């Protein structure tokens, strides 16, 4: 067993687990933060995407022990003062979700995209969100939401 100490959304956590425990399972089962979803468990679907030290990464193909000392961000950390994050607001406004399974990973991925490229073209948005599979929306609503959120995030809310 190994001890894992990390921060999630600014809050310090500590847990003990086997070295083979996947980070996504640690987040969901040990920390009880079930906002991050788990789908394929091999890096393809993107549902498990979280912020790892400020950069989007798949938590299903990382070990919990590798996150010892890291700062994570998950979908639970996006809301501020009871208000949705502007990107979440845009997803709601533009029908960027239906069942919501892909949405946590989609939001984190889009946030990372907009941080590295604050005013992406539609083509770049499509390339960016191709990292996450959505079985419901047909993606157009998601593209619209990311496009709408871009100037709001770029202006610092």
């Amino acid at each position: 067993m190994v001890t894992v100490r990390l921060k999630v959304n600014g809050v310090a956590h500590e847990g003990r687990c086997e070295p083979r425990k996947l980070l996504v399972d640690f987040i969901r089962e040990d920390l009880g933060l079930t906002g991050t979803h788990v789908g394929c468990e091999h890096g393809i679907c993107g549902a498990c995407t979280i912020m790892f030290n400020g950069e989007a990464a798949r938590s299903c193909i990382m070990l919990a022990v590798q996150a010892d000392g890291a700062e994570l961000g998950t979908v639970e950390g996006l809301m501020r003062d009871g208000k949705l994050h502007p990107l979440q607001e845009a997803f709601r406004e533009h029908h960027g979700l239906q069942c919501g399974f892909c949405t946590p990973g989609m939001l984190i991925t889009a946030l990372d995209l907009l941080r590295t490229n604050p005013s992406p073209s539609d083509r770049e948005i499509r390339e960016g969100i191709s990292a996450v599979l959505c079985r419901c929306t047909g993606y157009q609503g998601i593209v619209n939401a990311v496009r709408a959120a871009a100037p709001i995030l770029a202006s610092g809310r």
Partner: protein
Amino acid sequence: MKPPKFEYHAPTTLDEAVAALGRYGGDAKVLAGGQSLMPLLNFRLARPAALVDLNRVASLAYIREQDGQVRFGAMTRQRTIEFSPVVAQHLPLLKEATRWVGHLPIRTRGTIGGSIAHADPSAEYPAVLAALEGEVVARGAKGDRVIRAADLFQTYLTTNLAPDEILTEVRLPAMPAGVGYALEEFARRHGDFAIVGIAAMVVREGQRCTMARLATAGAGPVPVRLRAAEEILERDGLGEAAIDAAARKATELVDPDADIHASADYRRHLAGVLTKRALTRAIGVARG
């Protein structure tokens, strides 16, 4: 699924990592970005006795210019390469190739050393290593050795690294100023492994071509240098007829296998089409 049990080591120095690997006599695996190894563990297609995690070996992550080369520590993330000004200036082909490696969240973790050591026949970095005639450095119990791209790749997912060796550095010669380059690939969805990809580089003097490089991904078990096609350009120049002849030659030089993604014939066809596209674009951006 979940990974099988393994012993876990997270050394902080290269010496400790080499020693840890050596103790298992081939039963341990190096864990770099995990973007290929973790899926294999999750599916239990790999069942190593131990993992030697390089993620805490800080000395393995760097980008350095030396002796006309750009040298990368094996643990340099693909994401770091994508945004590196040194890479943009001296290795624009590598920068372009990086955008094709999975997706940004994959490149956050995936490393240059891992991509090359993994030697997926469809991967972009091995093709770039072949096109640029790069080399890698491996460290084992007996010390360092330098391996040229042409000697490194053996067959599918197999390099000539020994099980107790760690790939420590990747060296790519800086591309000459004004060089033309392009990486063209075809995949069904963006971010998927290429069905076929072609990396091209040309140095031109007017319509003459003083150097051409062409290397494949996905058109055989290892990256293939299309030397006979390069020679056509170096002999006949960069006109349309020479490009067509080089593309035709490319289809003869590759020996692809069929798999669930594509037939051998289709891959061969793609090798020609993509060679033409890559050359046309490379010549368009070349100065001189």
